[in-house]
């Protein structure tokens, strides 16, 4: 393979012309996805930094504002997302085994759970909107009270963090749809299923972000009397 001329292989999905072997191509794609995920860590990291600073500056206001979030809905939604991660990894497993129908079923389930998560998120946001919890909204619920400023910061972070998380979910849903279509067309085999594999990595990463967002946003000092 070393001194192979460039035209030695036809370009296919499983092996593009710049690579020598399928193994090399798969390694490159996986590595690229992991590197992309650490850029995502830093992307969310900027907001986690802002969150850390403000929560330590305004602990009580953050607790009060956090208490207005619906903890039951939040917990259920967390479980839904974890379920979707499970179905995703099952889809990857099915691709390893080359079970095309199973891939499709698990991908559809993942898509479904992702959709439920987004739906619940939309419901929660709507609730926030109706209750005038949105910063920047006219008649913010704490307008005029001394809590107003830091509470606005909490809700700004809440919407920015959950919003960007949801945006990642939407992108994930798009990717899943493409994968389902590609699986139906028979693009994947036990020898080549890199797209399913790295889409899985992405989906699990988005799950991990939520694993941190849930306690940090919903569960601040719930024991305090309100």
């Amino acid at each position, binding site marked *: 393979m070393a001194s192979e001329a460039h035209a030695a292989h036809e370009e296919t999905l499983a092996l593009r012309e710049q690579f020598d072997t399928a193994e090399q191509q798969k390694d490159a794609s996986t590595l690229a996805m992991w590197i992309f995920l650490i850029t995502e860590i830093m992307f969310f990291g900027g907001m986690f930094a802002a969150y850390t600073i403000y929560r330590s500056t305004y*602990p*009580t206001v953050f607790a009060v504002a956090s208490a207005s979030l619906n903890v039951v809905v939040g917990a259920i939604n967390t479980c839904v997302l974890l379920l979707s991660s499970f179905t995703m990894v099952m889809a990857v497993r099915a691709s390893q085994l080359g079970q095309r129908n199973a891939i499709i079923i698990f991908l559809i389930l993942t898509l479904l759970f992702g959709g439920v998560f987004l739906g619940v998120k939309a419901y929660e946001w709507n609730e926030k909107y109706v209750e005038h919890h949105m910063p920047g909204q006219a008649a913010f619920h704490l307008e005029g009270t001394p809590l107003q400023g830091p509470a606005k910061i909490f809700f700004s972070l809440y919407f920015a963090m959950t919003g960007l998380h949801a945006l990642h979910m939407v992108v994930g849903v798009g990717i899943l749809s493409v994968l389902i279509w590609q699986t139906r067309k028979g693009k994947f085999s036990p020898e080549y299923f890199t797209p399913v594999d790295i889409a899985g990595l992405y989906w699990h990463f988005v799950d991990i972000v939520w694993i941190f967002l849930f306690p940090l946003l919903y569960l601040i000092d719930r024991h305090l009397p309100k």
Partner: protein
Amino acid sequence: MQIPLFPEQASTISTEVDHLLYFLVAVSVFFTVLIFAAIFYFAIKYRRRSETEIPEHVHTGLTLEIVWTVIPFGLTMIMFAWGAAIFFKESRPPDDAMQIYVVGKQWMWKLQHMEGPREINELHIPVGRPVKLTMTSEDVIHSFFVPAFRTKHDVVPGRYATTWFTATKPGKYHLFCAEYCGTNHSGMIGWIYAMEPHDYQQWLSGTPKGTMAEAGAQLFQDLACANCHKEDGSGRCPSLKGLYGQTVLLTGGSTVTADEAYIRESILNPAAKVVSGYEPLMPTFQGQVTEENVVQLIEYVKSLASPPAAQQTNQKR
């Protein structure tokens, strides 16, 4: 018109900063000359004499690598320690410093003396006496910069920044805003007049009467603060007598030192830190008082710190 090549030294710190400068320049000149000389020397001595020559391999010397890692590192540590020593001095105003309040806004400097006089874009100070500036901004970030004093500090909205200097030479010195603040940033300039102490007293006596604390006391009445903050502690809110400088116990068990920042926050955002044992009843005064009013109120609260009261901590119940 004279062409300056070196700024005036007009404060105690300025000579120290300049000494550090001499050291840094000496190190820099040494290394710059070394590198330039080496390049010129090698480039001429080892110029290519035939197109086909291939010079002999020179092996990397580990010793050399260590030498030119360790020596510069040692030098930089001297720079670090020296710079840090000056910075520490610049950061900690002496206790006996004369207090000036500075409020920056687009695009002017507003300065208040404790004795009452208020100035715009001009500051009169005596030489030989430390001057502490407590600074805030009404809008964007500004920066209080007096090149002749080698003093600069950003003036950030929403909080107090402090810096200090002791002028050593009477004269008229530039005051610049050094942090970009919008359209007329370059117009946000003024003058510092450093004066002999007796000239300063003379200048002071020619200004209107009424100290900052008195202005603050008036505000305290006008804003009806006294209705709740009763001096004997019988009001719905804690007494402010002797508060300044004390450790205050807060709801939730944490404590805070009652400094300028805490008093300012308590006026503008009272619920942020509530004194233990009190209800968060106080309304915010954001929008009702200017930054200048706030510093007058602070001066008033500070004036209540009579020595006997300062012995007790400000905890109710």
